[in-house]
């Protein structure tokens, strides 16, 4: 039998208002409410993130992941099922953090056996360096460890695979050879110019109401309902106008 300790504790007053907040958010999905609720529960992300410190990921990153998971949990939460939000959210947070560990470590995972071998390689290198008075060659290390040269080189590779290469690192000697400068990327500025040009062209062919709807809906981020009220028409009407505009845009685009 499991007793839920947390449920019987805490102040009744705040518990009620939190419940009310969650219920009205579930109905309205209002962003203001969402922010308010998240602020109240951010401490969960903080506590859970702290529990996972010391596993090779910085606290700040963990807190970030946990906070995002909190948003996800809130969006999925159904109040009125008799489950406390903290109880519902915690497994989601833990799950997301563990996924993060898995994804992050997959990039840099070295098997335990490999780790052990890398450690032996280090020892061998140190020993041989002392013995010969200079840095040992892979052949010397291979002979000493009873491995093939190929295997030694593999291990040396594994040794550095555990670290991500910095984009600021220099790939060659010379001033301008930071890795970041050599990594190519698509320049999307051209596409932006084309898009802007197209939009301007389309805009010239809209009537005043249509322009207003676009401005308010996408410029000011107003809802269809808000724009309808502003223009003194029904929300259905705005929806129809939007469909019409979309059709116009599509016709222009196909031309």
């Amino acid at each position, binding site marked *: 039998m499991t007793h*839920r*300790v*947390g449920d019987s504790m805490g102040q009744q007053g705040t518990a009620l208002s939190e419940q009310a907040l969650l219920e009205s958010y579930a109905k309205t999905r209002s962003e203001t409410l969402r922010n308010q609720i998240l602020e109240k529960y951010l*401490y*969960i992300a903080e506590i859970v993130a702290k529990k996972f410190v010391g596993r090779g990921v910085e606290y700040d990153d963990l807190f970030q992941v946990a906070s995002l998971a909190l948003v996800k949990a809130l969006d999925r939460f159904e109040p009125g099922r008799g489950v406390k939000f*903290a109880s519902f959210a915690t497994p989601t947070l833990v799950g997301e953090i563990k996924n993060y560990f898995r994804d992050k470590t997959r990039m840099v995972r070295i098997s335990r056996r490999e780790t052990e071998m890398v450690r032996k390689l280090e020892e061998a290198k140190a020993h041989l360096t002392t013995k010969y008075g200079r840095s040992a060659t892979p052949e010397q290390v291979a002979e000493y460890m009873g491995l093939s040269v190929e295997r030694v080189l593999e291990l040396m590779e594994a040794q550095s695979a555990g670290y991500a290469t910095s984009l600021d690192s220099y790939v060659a000697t010379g001033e301008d050879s930071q890795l970041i400068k050599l990594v190519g990327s698509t320049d999307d500025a051209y596409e932006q110019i084309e898009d802007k040009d197209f939009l301007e062209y389309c805009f010239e062919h809209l009537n005043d109401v249509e322009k207003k709807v676009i401005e308010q809906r996408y410029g000011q981020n107003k809802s269809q309902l808000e724009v309808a009220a502003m223009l003194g028409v029904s929300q259905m009407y705005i929806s129809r106008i939007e469909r019409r505009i979309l059709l116009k845009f599509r016709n222009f685009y196909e031309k």
Partner: protein
Amino acid sequence: MSGDVIRLEVPARPEYILAVRLVVSAVAERGGFSIEDIEDLKVASAEACILLMDSAPETLDIRITAGDALSLEIKALGQRGAAAKTSSEEGLSQYLLEALVDNCEIRQEGGVVRSVRFTKRP
């Protein structure tokens, strides 16, 4: 190591949680758990201790059973002072435990947690 039992009794004070975590991790390592699972077991053991310390016991009696799965049973023994009125960390310890181990039983006596039992399979 099927059915091996490891017992440990520590003063119910936060500074001994580390000792519990270390013993649990050493036993789990013998049981073939992955590094991630061992970390989870360490967090779960610590959370169980935190939960039990709310009842202000003298000592914690820890019994680890290592078989196909690893089971932990931690009991609060004696009474050092008054039990905490509200659970520390808003009761999150319990939710964390439930998220990290396969099954978990939390027993209360007189409104405070006095024993925690959980199991985790590798």
